[in-house]
Each structure stands twice: as structure tokens, then as C-alpha cells.
């Protein structure tokens, strides 16, 4: 290769490579390394081996906080899969029949996806206010006043409320991904099945669902990563401590509190914070890799 060609290649590739190395690769490798050191404030001290992980799993209050937050991330994932993505499959099947106005529905359904979670969170926090919010007022108007409650203040409903707020914001995304998946299925398959006398439900179950597997794989992985990345919504609606009484605490909040300190306890511990980050990192990367391989194997070729 001539020298000038090589110089051009370097000029084209260098900016991205340098930016990516300094602000992505280096911090990620450092994050892994930080978990193996002892810390005082934000000053790094001696190499500590796995001591931070040992403390995280054995010294009060960390094991309990970790288990509590982890369980909430898992609940977020499971309920989001069931409620949000279940609804999304249904809506996509309806939209795929090409009803009148399907284009407009698509645009409306996707609208909240573009809004900041901060706006969405605050908006629903106002709506869910036990005294002044429209949700309880609406329930009262509908004669269901008995259901009215402090949705975000009651530990029994706080996390579920956040999951529903999050689903309100995201629903359009899986809906349109599933819709694209259904639309990509060749009309011949559907016609052939119908000619063979398959009912609507049979067409859905035997033709559409198996061929929708690639879209399902992507949505499962994205939902998993999204659920374990939860931060903005609980931070904005419930505060950095996961109120009430840590009912909405998730790993993202716990990580942020241990890394940067908590207002009410002043607890800051970068060693522990880094250990939490490494655990989250391992969970996310391994599950999404496993998911991609395992779920992909079940996909039907056509």
C-alpha cells in the first residue's frame, strides 16, 4: 500500500480510535481494576484483592441492600416482559392487520418513547399524588374511590407504579419492533396456512410466533439490559434512596449512592461501589451473550 494511502487511513481512523480508547476503553478497564483496590474517599490506596467483594457480601448493610436491589431489578425485568412486551405483541398483531389509520396509531404509540424519562417520571409523580393527583381523582369519578391510594408512598405499590410508568413510556418501542417482525413474514406463508384451513389463532401460533423469534430475542435482551440499567426513573420519582423504605431501590441507585455518597447516611465507599459495578457488568454482559446464543438457537430459519 502506498504511503499516502496509509497516511489517509490513519487520518480517517485516528480520531475515533483515540476518542474511544480514552473515554470508553480506559474507563471500563479502570472500573474493573478499581474494584481490586482499597479506597479512601476518591483516593486510591493499596491493592486489596477481592476484599471489596468480600465486604460487599458480608458486612452490614451491604448484603441486604444488594439482595434487595437485585431482587427489584429482577422484578422489573419479569413484570416488564409480561405487562409491557405482552401488550406490545398484542398491539403489533392488531396493527399488522393493517386497520384503517394504522399509520397514525404507530406515530401515537411511539410518541412517549421520545420523551425524557425525567419528564415522564415527574409527570406521573404529579398524577399519582395521593391528594391532588388525577389518578385518584379519576378513580373517584369512576366510582372506584376505594382503590385510591398513595401509589408511590405505599411500599406495596411503589415499585409496580414505577414499572407501569416505565411501560407507558416504552410500550411503543417493542410494539413497532414486533410489528416490523410480523410485516417481514412473507405473505405466502400466511396465505398457504389459511388455504390449508388454519384458523386465525393457529396462524398466529404456528406461523407468526415462530418466525417472530428474532424480534423476541432482541426485545428480551434489550428489556433485560434496560431493567438492569434502571436509574433515572426511580431517582426522579422516588429519590436516590429508593423511597419508601427502599421499596424502589435498584442496583443503579445503590451503585450511585455508594460511589457518590448518600444524602441521609453520608455513606460513600468507592471500593464497594466499584465491586457493585463489576457485578452488574458481569450480569449484563453474560446474560445478554447467553441470551443471544440460547434464544437464537430456537429461531426458525426460512
Amino acid at each position: 500500500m502506498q504511503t499516502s494511502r496509509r497516511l489517509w487511513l490513519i487520518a480517517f481512523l485516528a480520531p475515533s480510535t483515540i476518542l474511544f480508547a480514552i473515554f470508553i476503553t480506559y474507563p471500563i478497564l479502570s472500573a474493573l481494576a478499581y474494584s481490586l483496590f482499597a479506597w479512601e474517599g476518591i483516593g486510591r490506596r493499596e491493592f486489596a484483592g477481592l476484599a471489596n467483594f468480600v465486604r460487599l457480601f458480608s458486612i452490614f448493610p451491604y448484603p441486604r441492600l444488594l439482595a434487595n436491589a437485585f431482587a427489584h431489578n429482577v422484578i422489573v425485568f419479569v413484570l416488564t416482559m409480561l405487562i409491557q412486551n405482552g401488550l406490545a405483541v398484542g398491539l403489533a398483531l392488531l396493527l399488522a392487520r393493517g386497520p384503517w389509520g394504522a399509520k397514525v396509531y404507530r406515530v401515537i404509540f411511539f410518541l412517549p418513547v421520545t420523551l425524557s424519562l425525567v419528564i415522564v417520571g415527574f409527570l406521573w409523580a404529579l398524577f399519582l399524588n395521593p391528594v391532588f393527583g388525577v389518578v385518584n381523582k379519576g378513580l373517584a369519578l369512576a366510582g372506584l374511590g376505594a382503590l385510591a391510594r398513595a401509589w408511590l408512598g405505599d411500599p406495596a405499590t411503589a415499585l409496580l407504579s414505577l414499572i407501569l410508568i416505565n411501560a407507558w413510556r416504552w410500550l411503543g418501542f417493542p410494539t413497532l419492533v414486533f410489528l416490523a417482525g410480523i410485516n417481514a413474514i412473507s405473505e405466502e406463508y400466511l396465505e398457504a396456512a389459511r388455504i390449508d384451513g388454519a384458523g386465525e389463532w393457529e396462524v398466529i401460533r404456528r406461523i407468526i410466533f415462530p418466525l417472530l423469534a428474532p424480534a423476541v430475542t432482541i426485545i428480551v435482551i434489550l428489556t433485560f439490559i434496560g431493567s438492569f440499567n434502571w436509574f433515572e426513573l426511580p431517582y426522579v420519582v422516588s429519590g436516590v434512596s429508593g423511597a419508601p423504605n427502599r421499596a424502589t431501590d435498584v442496583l443503579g441507585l445503590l451503585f450511585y449512592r455508594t460511589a457518590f455518597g448518600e444524602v441521609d447516611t453520608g455513606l460513600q465507599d468507592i471500593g464497594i461501589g466499584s465491586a457493585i459495578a463489576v457485578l452488574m457488568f458481569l450480569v449484563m454482559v453474560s446474560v445478554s451473550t447467553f441470551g443471544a446464543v440460547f434464544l437464537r438457537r430456537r429461531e426458525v430459519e426460512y
Partner: protein
Amino acid sequence: MRGSAWTPLIHAVLIANALLVLVPMVIMGLSAFKTTREIFQNPFGLPAVWRIENFSRVWVEARFGTYIQNSVLVTVLSVAVLVAFGAMAGYALGRFRFKGNDLLYLYFLSGLMLPIRLAIIPLFILMRNLNLLDSPWSLVLIYAASGLPSAIFILTGFFKTLPADLDSAARIDGASEWSIFTQIMLPLVRPALVIVTVYNAIPIWNDFFFPLVFIQTEARKTLPQGMTVFFGQYFTDYATLFSGLTLAAIPIVVLYVILSQHFIRGLTAGAVKG
């Protein structure tokens, strides 16, 4: 079973979901024009008087003008850097055979898997050492860097699909590498540039996490971050809060109404093939 009996039921479900999306937004918009007392007494109706002054209060007193300006600046700069760098790298990776090409491509793609927020502690220390804490540049650099994997992934793919004789013909005519890139190649991948822009600009505009950690000075805060300040200050003043929410939502909603197809295609890129 197609059409006929099921059609009304299908529309009922679709309309119900459309209302679920739109009613909260309409209540927000209407409440923005009411007094707080009116919001409590008549939450669902039209405002008795349309109070536009609610918005001017938010714009000036609550510094929304400043927040929006900061958000625009950070978003435009970040996207400009990442699209420019990403296009250059995508061009080199997509159209030149050289040693290490595949390896470098995979190196960038690894960024798609890595949740960069988990590296916030080293990033914080890095920004402090670079003297960039509390500067919009800290945001621009991290947004541009974390947008590169998707940009390079999308653009390399596009550059690869362009016919091979395009650049060789220009090269024989004596065109320089830079002018081949800017005059011939870039215009041809414009659809991909739009996708990359939307895919990155919306999450950057909406991001709250990095400003929360990097920016302290009031006058440098971005819109989502400023919202949390604002909610802390006005937490019982519902009229002002709803005006603020409406004002914060307007830029993106207006853009979305005009460019909805680009938004949908851009934001689902990566999850939807082709």
C-alpha cells in the same frame, strides 16, 4: 374472520391505547395554562382563562431558557463530533482492505455491549484530572465516544454497499482522498447519517445521568438536570410544574410530529433489520 366482525373490536383496543398515550399529555398541556387551585378543582376540564404567563415565569425565573440552550449546545456538538468521526472511521473500515481492519471494527463494536455508565467512577476521576468537570465538554466527549460504536456499525455497513468502481473512477481522475470522501461518498450515505443522528441525538438530549455527575454550576445544567432543580423549588406549585413539564416536552414533541418516520426508523435502528 379477516375484516368484518373483528374490526370494531380491533379499533376499540387501538383507540384505547392511543388515549392511554394522549390523555396524560393533554392533561399536562391543559394544566400548564391553569392556576394551581384550578388544577386541583377541575383537573380534567379546559382552563377558565388560558394563562400564557405561566410559561414566561418558567422560562425566566426557573431558567428554562438557559437549560434549553445548554442542552441544544451539548446535543449539537456531541452529534456533530460523533457523526464526523464515525463517518470517517466507517468509510475507512468499509471501503479499504488493510491489516487489522476486522480487529479494529470488532474493537469498536465491543462498545455496543459495554454499559459505559458503570464506569462512572473512573470517568469522574478522568474528567477531574483533565480539568473538564463542570464543563459541557465533559458531556460532549462522553456522548461522542459512547455514540461511536453504533455510528461505526451503521455507517460501515452502508459504505460497504456502495459500488466499488465509484471511488476508483474518481481516483483515476486524480481526486484527493478527502474530496472523494466528502464529495462522492458522504452524499450517498445521507440516509444512514440521518439514522445515526436520530439514534444518538434523542438519548443525548434526554440524558440525565452524566450531567448529574459532571455538572454542578446552575448556569451550565442541561434541561433534564434543570428539571430536577425546578421540581425541588416549586414542588407544591402545580401550575408552574405543569408549565415546566409542557415546555420541556414541546421541542421534542414538535420535532417528532414533523419527522416521526425518521424518529421511528432512527430509534429502532439496531432492533429492526433494514
